[in-house]
């Protein structure tokens, strides 16, 4: 155990920083672990969401989606001024149609009843934000038949996504403040961690296994240092996303009407200025002369040919049925961070279907470009599958860094505090929270996915129950860790979480999802990917349980770990 720091005496910088690193890291480590773990999973939000809806696993895209989307939109929203068609893509094969509801033209039709919309995976209805974004309605469709899908109620990956920035059950405002403070502390821990690390380059590749505390520290430093740029970028950009919330005075000093944005949509607005895109919501006025909308499939082909075969992600039809109609085709992902990862667009005349000149978008100002780069990186919006995997793995390395740091705290004190019968309360508290904060969170995650598949379809507020199962399992792990001997608690919870997660492919196949042997051979690839990841993660957890168990029985030296 390091010597206690004396504040009444002069002390070297490195010692002060070590103290800071130890205690800030410990205080918020468990929260940061949960935030990093759920945030890393959120890079695969669409894929996880898709896995959690087995009724969608049969969907197949046979390239007729665009025609079905148009048919449904003409039926459901003939008066809407703008349609958005999200084509089935590699991340989610569901076809989504959305339409804009302007106050002037009530486009809600009887078929789009509130309960259908509530069942759509994203909540169906979007409220206008900041008074500038118009209200939209949204439906999920089968891409090969155009049938409106009634999705089973569930929390989906949205729960994990929301949890990573606003927690759950404390209200979004308090939750975001807590996560914001934790992110600030994470930055403090990162900077102090770099200062106390003596040989960043000489020890860059150093990992010495089976050496107790030495190994834990090596692992902590290794995953911390190799992904250091990611850790800084993801933490800082996370804070930046909360900028207006955490430092409201800064925004108010330049924008007098933050609170009144809804009442004065044309006035300067911070969110719109920093993100750009105010123009997205300004529609060209209709001509008033009716004209039939051009066929959409040839337009889509033309755009994709123009991009050398790269796929389109969505199609926006403005003023359908009017002589001034336009069709805009948008690529799936962008090619730069500076412009918010926005994709290439191609604009077409909506009546005759010819390509129109797109006005050249002004490059963003330096401030906006920096903001965009960081925020877009955080959200991974630009990412191709390989890049998404890199982001996910970097997130996992951050999660491992936090977990190993928490374990290092305990291992460093085991010799002096842990051997005695009456270990101090604080020491025992850290032991309990380490088990339930790390292994217990994974148990809760496994239980959450099980609940998603095993709760009865008819259960009222099914999505809330999934979340309840998550927290019940987490609470149970806390109780278990309190009453079990520390090492037994680790082994048992690691084993249990490993079993829960490794069995997910089986549960998936038995409860109506695409079974692994079929999804591996012929798709859907998202489901195969989820199931394989679950198998690998479960195997790693079982392996970890075995290592802890062996350390307990065999080697007195590792027992110190």
């Amino acid at each position, binding site marked *: 155990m390091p010597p206690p720091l004396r504040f009444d005496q002069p002390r070297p910088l490195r010692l002060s920083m070590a103290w800071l690193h130890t205690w800030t890291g410990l205080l918020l480590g468990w929260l940061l672990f949960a935030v990093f773990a759920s945030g890393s999973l959120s890079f695969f939000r669409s894929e996880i969401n898709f896995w959690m809806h087995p009724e969608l696993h049969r969907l197949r895209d046979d390239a007729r989606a665009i025609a079905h989307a148009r048919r449904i939109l003409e039926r459901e929203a003939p008066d809407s001024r703008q349609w958005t068609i999200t084509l089935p893509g590699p991340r989610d094969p569901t076809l989504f149609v959305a339409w804009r509801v302007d106050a002037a033209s009530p486009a809600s039709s009887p078929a789009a009843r509130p309960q259908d919309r509530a069942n759509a995976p994203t909540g169906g209805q979007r409220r206008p934000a900041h008074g500038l974004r118009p209200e939209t309605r949204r439906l999920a469709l089968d891409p090969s038949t155009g049938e409106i899908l009634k999705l089973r109620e569930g929390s989906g990956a949205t729960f994990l996504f929301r949890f990573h920035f606003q927690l759950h059950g404390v209200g979004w405002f308090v939750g975001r403040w807590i996560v914001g403070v934790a992110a600030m502390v994470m930055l403090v821990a990162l900077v102090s961690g770099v200062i106390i690390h003596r040989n960043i380059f000489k020890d860059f590749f150093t990992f010495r296994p089976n050496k107790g505390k030495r190994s834990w520290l090596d692992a902590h430093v290794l995953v911390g240092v190799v*992904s250091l740029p*990611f850790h800084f970028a993801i933490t800082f950009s996370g804070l930046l996303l909360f900028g207006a919330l955490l430092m409201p005075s800064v925004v108010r000093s330049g924008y007098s009407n933050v609170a009144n944005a809804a009442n004065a949509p044309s006035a300067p607005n911070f969110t719109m200025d920093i993100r750009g895109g105010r123009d997205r919501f300004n529609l060209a006025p209709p001509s008033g002369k009716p004209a039939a909308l051009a066929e959409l499939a040839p337009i889509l082909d033309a755009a994709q040919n123009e991009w050398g075969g790269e796929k389109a992600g969505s199609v926006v039809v403005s003023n359908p049925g009017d002589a001034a109609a336009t069709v805009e085709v948008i690529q799936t992902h962008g*090619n*730069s961070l500076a412009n918010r990862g926005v994709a290439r667009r191609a604009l077409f005349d909506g009546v005759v279907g010819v390509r129109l000149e797109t006005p050249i978008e002004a490059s963003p100002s330096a401030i906006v470009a920096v903001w965009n780069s960081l925020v877009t990186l955080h959200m991974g919006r630009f990412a191709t599958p390989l890049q998404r995997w890199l982001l996910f793995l970097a997130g996992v390395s951050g999660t491992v860094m936090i977990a190993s740091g928490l374990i290092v705290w305990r291992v460093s004190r085991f010799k002096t505090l842990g051997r005695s019968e009456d270990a101090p309360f604080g020491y025992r508290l850290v032991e309990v929270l380490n088990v339930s904060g790390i292994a217990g969170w994974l148990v809760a995650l496994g239980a959450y996915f099980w609940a998603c598949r095993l709760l009865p379809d008819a259960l009222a507020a099914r999505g809330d129950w999934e979340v309840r199962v998550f927290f019940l399992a987490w609470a149970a792990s806390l109780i278990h860790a309190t009453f079990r001997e520390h090492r037994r608690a680790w082994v048992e919870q690691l084993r249990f979480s490993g079993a829960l997660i490794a069995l997910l492919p089986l549960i998936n196949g038995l409860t109506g999802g695409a079974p692994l042997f079929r999804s591996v051979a012929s798709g859907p690839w998202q489901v195969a990917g989820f199931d394989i990841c679950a198998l690998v993660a479960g195997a790693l957890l079982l392996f970890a349980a075995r290592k802890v168990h062996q350390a307990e029985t065999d080697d007195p030296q590792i027992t110190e770990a």
Partner: protein
Amino acid sequence: METVFSNTLFFALTVGGLCFLSLGIERHAKQAFGKAPPREPRRARSALGAAMLALSLASSIQTSGVSIGIAVFFGTVAVVSIGVALMLAFRPRLLRFVGAVAAAVAPLAFLAGFFS
């Protein structure tokens, strides 16, 4: 350049660069070769590793643009570095082989991409 060649080039440069950088460090050279080699060859390996890594950053930027290229570079370096560290811990001799293969593949991928 064809995507498959540019990706191979980038990956080979990153793997090779990090292998040679690690072999330039005394402790790891000892692990991989069984004895600590003299200073000069270690210096040469460090320089080769740094040069390959610089080229890998350049190739990533060439493929994905400045902003995403830098992000992809750092992400790949992180993943490969953990791989190198694990190899040094459990199969240190394998590292020489992997480094040599990566150093051989990189120019081939470049030529293949150049002439395709």
